[in-house]
């Protein structure tokens, strides 16, 4: 059985890599669409929580859905998982329209809600068994799957009832319940919100493992560091509308310097620095007995600075261009 499982996993990985390569060769950002929204809109009392959202996420992607509180992230997820119906537009997952076939969709997705909750009077195993009974699994399959999942989230051997769990344990159990049906698509709403650093580390490992299995993962979060570490594509939502989408690199290139068109180059040397002059240099701040300079310039002058210092016999300890972080990108996009 173990051999069979490994074989299936290897096949899935191969299939995923093949699809990924196919996408890359074609120069397209996306291959087969796994998640798609068309003009998705949700109104509450005349206020649009989600406003005409168009989104396409390819199979195998780890998509980070960013946005401030109240931007419409959770509402979008609830529509995607078939828990609420859109006012307008539609969600399609694996070519199935969610509003028309919510049960079909739920059978192939897993969902970890924000602040996930369970039945406090039952153990983790009993909770998972209750949920697993909604799928076509017999008693043996359920037992085996639950054992695997509890081991994965390191809750195996915990016999106490869920009512006595910490929030972190609850969150880990939440991931296990989202994986009960071995879903094709996984929706995670603020997955690291209640986890300690060790829990966050384990979560990243689990996401990596799930991604290797070829699952499409949709992560909604406002913890930017987490998104930048695990996601390969990112979407930023504000006031119910998607305002940016792409890989982290694409977003950095597009939005990283919005508002400040200049670059920051930091140079550290062993000997004191000579004066560096170039028409693109806007300012240069020397420090540490002229052994460090922060240059603000209109263009990437690293080649020029390197040659100048080499000619003058100054040994370079470090030279780097300051990269915009996801936080810079997010704030830049959000404040536009």
């Amino acid at each position: 059985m173990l051999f069979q499982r490994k074989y299936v996993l290897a096949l899935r990985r191969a299939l995923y890599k093949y699809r990924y390569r196919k996408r890359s060769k074609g120069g397209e950002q996306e291959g087969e669409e796994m998640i798609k929204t068309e003009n998705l809109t949700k109104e509450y009392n005349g206020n649009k929580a989600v406003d005409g959202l168009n989104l396409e996420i390819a199979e195998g992607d780890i998509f980070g859905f960013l946005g401030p509180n109240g931007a419409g992230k959770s509402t979008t997820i609830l529509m995607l998982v078939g828990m609420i119906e859109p006012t307008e537009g539609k969600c399609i997952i694996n070519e199935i329209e969610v509003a028309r076939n919510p049960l079909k969709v739920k059978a192939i997705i897993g969902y970890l809600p924000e602040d996930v909750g369970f039945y406090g009077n039952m153990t983790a195993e009993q909770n998972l068994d209750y949920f697993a009974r909604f799928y076509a699994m017999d008693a043996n399959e359920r037992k085996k799957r639950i054992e695997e999942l509890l081991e994965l989230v390191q809750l195996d051997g915990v016999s106490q009832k869920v009512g006595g769990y910490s929030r972190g344990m609850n969150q880990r159990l939440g991931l296990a319940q989202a994986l009960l049906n071995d879903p094709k698509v996984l929706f995670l709403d603020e997955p690291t919100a209640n986890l300690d650093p060790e829990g966050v580390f384990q979560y990243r490992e689990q996401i990596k493992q799930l991604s290797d299995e070829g699952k499409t993962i949709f992560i909604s979060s406002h913890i930017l560091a987490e998104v930048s570490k695990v996601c390969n594509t990112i979407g930023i939502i504000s006031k119910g509308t998607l305002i940016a989408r792409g890989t982290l690199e694409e977003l950095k290139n597009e939005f990283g310097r919005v508002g400040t068109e200049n670059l920051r180059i930091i140079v550290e040397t062993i000997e004191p620095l000579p004066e560096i002059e170039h028409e693109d240099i806007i300012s240069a701040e020397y420090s540490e007995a002229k052994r460090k300079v922060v240059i603000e310039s209109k263009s990437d002058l690293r080649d020029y600075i390197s040659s100048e210092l080499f000619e003058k016999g100054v040994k370079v300890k470090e030279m780097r261009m300051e990269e915009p972080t996801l936080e810079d990108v997010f704030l830049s996009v959000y404040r536009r």
Partner: protein
Amino acid sequence: MEAKGLFNVARKEFIDHLTSRKFLIILALFLVISAISMHQGIDNYNDRLERYKEQISQITGEEGIEPGYMPEKPSILLIFQMMSFQMSLLGAILAIVMGFDLITREKESRSLKSLLSHPIFRDEIINGKALGGILALVFAIGIALIISFAMLLLFSIVPDLNELWRIALFGVISVLCLLTYFSIALMTSTVSENSGMSIIYALIIFLTISLFLPMVGGMVAEIVVGEPPESPTYRIPPPPPTPNANENEQGEVIKPVKIEIPMDEEEWQRYEEESRAYWEKRSAIDGAIFTLVPTTNYLAVSSAVLSKNGGGLMFFGPGYRSETEGQDMLERIWKNILALIIFPLVFFAIAYIKFMRMDIR
């Protein structure tokens, strides 16, 4: 609607009820009080039986049975009549305790979102919860009846087939009564934000229909139909025309006697008709108001079922009389039976609609 999800939810809810501390405490209290009232009922029954035997032995002498009066053998169903009072109060509390946090607890623990993320329709959840609750109520009533039956056997009282049938029917009616309160609690649990508010709403409705309605029923009827018609005026006939009105021939003083004679026969008949119409109307309004009281309906129907001849009714609402024949029973209590069936359906329908439209965020 898929039955698989429904039964899964119902199974979980049933187990939850049976393992819930509050359910077990109230069920234990309910069973203990039922057993005590059964014991009292059995004592009462044995006393009556003794009296009956004495009467029989007095009547039947050496000459055999005397024609005419024949005492009636007491029915063991009387024992269950005492139980029905406990059922209507403690059973109602048990049903409310079972239902008041069925939905609010899911919202508070946020387990509803987890549940809905799996392949299950919303109606399966609410129907499953109702089914689980009904099964738990059937279980509670079943246990109470089994204990009662065991007590009967302990006291060497063996019911006949007809009595067994009536006891079973009493169980069904008891479940219907408790179901009314359970559906009220389920409804308040669906419309309330939290369990605290839900129990308050459930108790308000319980007190309104159990105490307030019977109290104001008569007042409402009087307001609607007004004062009863006044009787016709009477006239006092004039004294006989004697020379001395106050003395007879023997010289005795005669006191005038007032003889009240209706002034007009037609007027009197009209008064009787108006009065009958008035009381019929008032009785109908009273009856309609009392039909809104589940306890009245329950006691009316259970009393009819538990009377030996099927008609010895003891109703608590106005407009009812005791001792009617068996065939009249259904005619008399069909409204109560209908109310016992309709009330749970109405409250459950409200809970169902509200739950289906509930905003899950």
